[in-house]
Structures are given as C-alpha cells and as structure tokens.
C-alpha cells in the first residue's frame, strides 16, 4: 500500500506520515501543493491520497477535480481546516472519498483511512 500525503505544511506532512508509519504503512510519498499531487498520481499508482485544501499553486480541491478529470479513481481523503458544510459537500461532489477536519487525533486518521480502504477491499492493521 503506497500512500501520497499532500500538504504545504511540512509540519502537517510529518504528523500524517508519522501517523501512517506508526500504523505500519511503509511506503509514503509527499507533495507540497496541488500541482505536485496531480503530477504524482499521474506518474505513480497510489492506494490512497491524503489531500489538504489550502495550498499554493493549485488548491487541493482543484487538484482533486484534475485527478478525477484524468479518469483516475484513487481514493482521496481531504484533510483540512475547511470545516463548513458547503466545503465538505463540494469535496464529496468532486469525488473525495472522505473528509477529515483539522485538528485531529491519530485514531481519527486511521479510522477514516481504514474506512476508505475497506471499501476497496484493503485495510491497514493498526499497531497496538
């Protein structure tokens, strides 16, 4: 299982990567804006993408739309401070698989990751 973490904040990328690696995920790539995310999913087959919303160059929501426009069905979970209902609906309509609002606990991240992966027949066994 290879996962792409997309966030312009180095801190948030490290928090998410630490959470995923703590749960046993060994292959995690990172991108720091929406355009890098589109380029990465075009070049590499990922099992999951964790995507921030507010980023320079290309917003996460626009990156999600671009990924879907390419016909790519990789599951994408938005991980963002954008908490308004309108934002959540916009993301789901654009093809997001789930939505996590910052701040979060590691348990919430793994719960939603496994919920999304479970739909595609995969999952990550959370280490005790």
């Amino acid at each position: 299982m290879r996962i792409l973490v997309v966030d312009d904040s180095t801190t948030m990328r490290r928090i998410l990567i630490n959470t995923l690696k703590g749960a046993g995920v060994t292959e995690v790539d990172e991108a720091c804006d929406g355009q890098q995310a589109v380029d990465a999913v075009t070049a590499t087959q990922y099992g999951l993408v964790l995507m921030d919303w507010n980023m320079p160059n290309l917003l996460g929501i626009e990156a999600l739309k671009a990924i879907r426009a390419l016909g790519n069905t990789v599951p994408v979970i938005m991980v963002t401070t954008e908490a308004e209902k309108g934002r959540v609906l916009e993301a789901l309509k654009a093809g997001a698989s789930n939505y996590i609002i910052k701040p979060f606990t590691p348990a919430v991240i793994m719960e939603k990751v496994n919920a999304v992966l479970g739909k595609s027949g995969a999952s990550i066994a959370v280490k005790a």
Partner: protein
Amino acid sequence: MKVEYINPFVESVYDLFTTMLGCEAKRGDISMTRKNDPPSQSVVAIIGLSGSVCGCVTMVFPARTAIHVAHRLLGCQIDELNQDVMDAVSEMINIVAGGAKAKLNGDQDKPANLSLPTVIQGADYKIQHPSWSVWLDIPFESQLGPFNLCVSIETDHARKGIAS
C-alpha cells in the same frame, strides 16, 4: 467588532491543544489593544480571512513556548528556533483560524477564505495595527508555556447591520 466573535477562536485554541498537543490551554482576561509589544525573542504567526468573515488573526509565542509546541507536535527534539518551529506555528494559526471561521460562518453558501499563513521571528519589533481597527488580545497559559491570540474581524452580518 463584537467580543462574542472571540469565542470561536478561543474554542479553536482549546480544540487544537486537547486534540493535537495533549494538554489544555487556559484563557486569561480579554483586552482591547491597538499595538502589541511582543516578548523578546518571539514568534508571531499571522493569517488573514476574506469573504463573509474578514480580518486578521495573530498568535504570539515567546521563543520557549514556540519550541515546546513544535516539539510536541512533531514528536522530535527541538532546541532552538528553526524552520520546524516556524512551520509548526504556521500550521497552528491555520488550524485555529480555520476552525473559528467555520463556526462564525455557519452554513453560508460561500465560506470565507483563509490566506496562507505568515510567520515573523525576531527580538526587536512592534506590531502596529491601523488606527481604525479594533483588536482583541487574549492571553493563554498552557503546559507548553504562555502565548497570546489577537483577533480583528468582522462578519457579513455585522457589516450589513444585522445582529449575529
């Protein structure tokens, strides 16, 4: 600017500390301010809001608090003000402002927008606000050290003269 606008920001600070920093933050007395003299060797994170909620939010951390916060967020040893610390406080202001704007904004069709955060670090500077702006300053105490949150915002409702 109404004092009650402050509550969503205070709640966001509480949420951030209990969820991602593993400790509580306690608010002190709110005061109005037109200028701040930051503590020596401090880190200031600034973010703007535009749209239905517009204004500016800052968090002012003494150096030791900023270092402790970054250490707790990243789970690694940090002994000085470095890029990790700047990135950490930048993400903190992003989370605090994002959570607050959602609460202030309700379920409006057009959510407010956040700017990308800016961080200033130094020992000899002042933060001056435009004379017409009203800033509320909220001191906090936490296990990781003291810090201040300063907020100056208005909402669509207030601008249209509707009580919110």
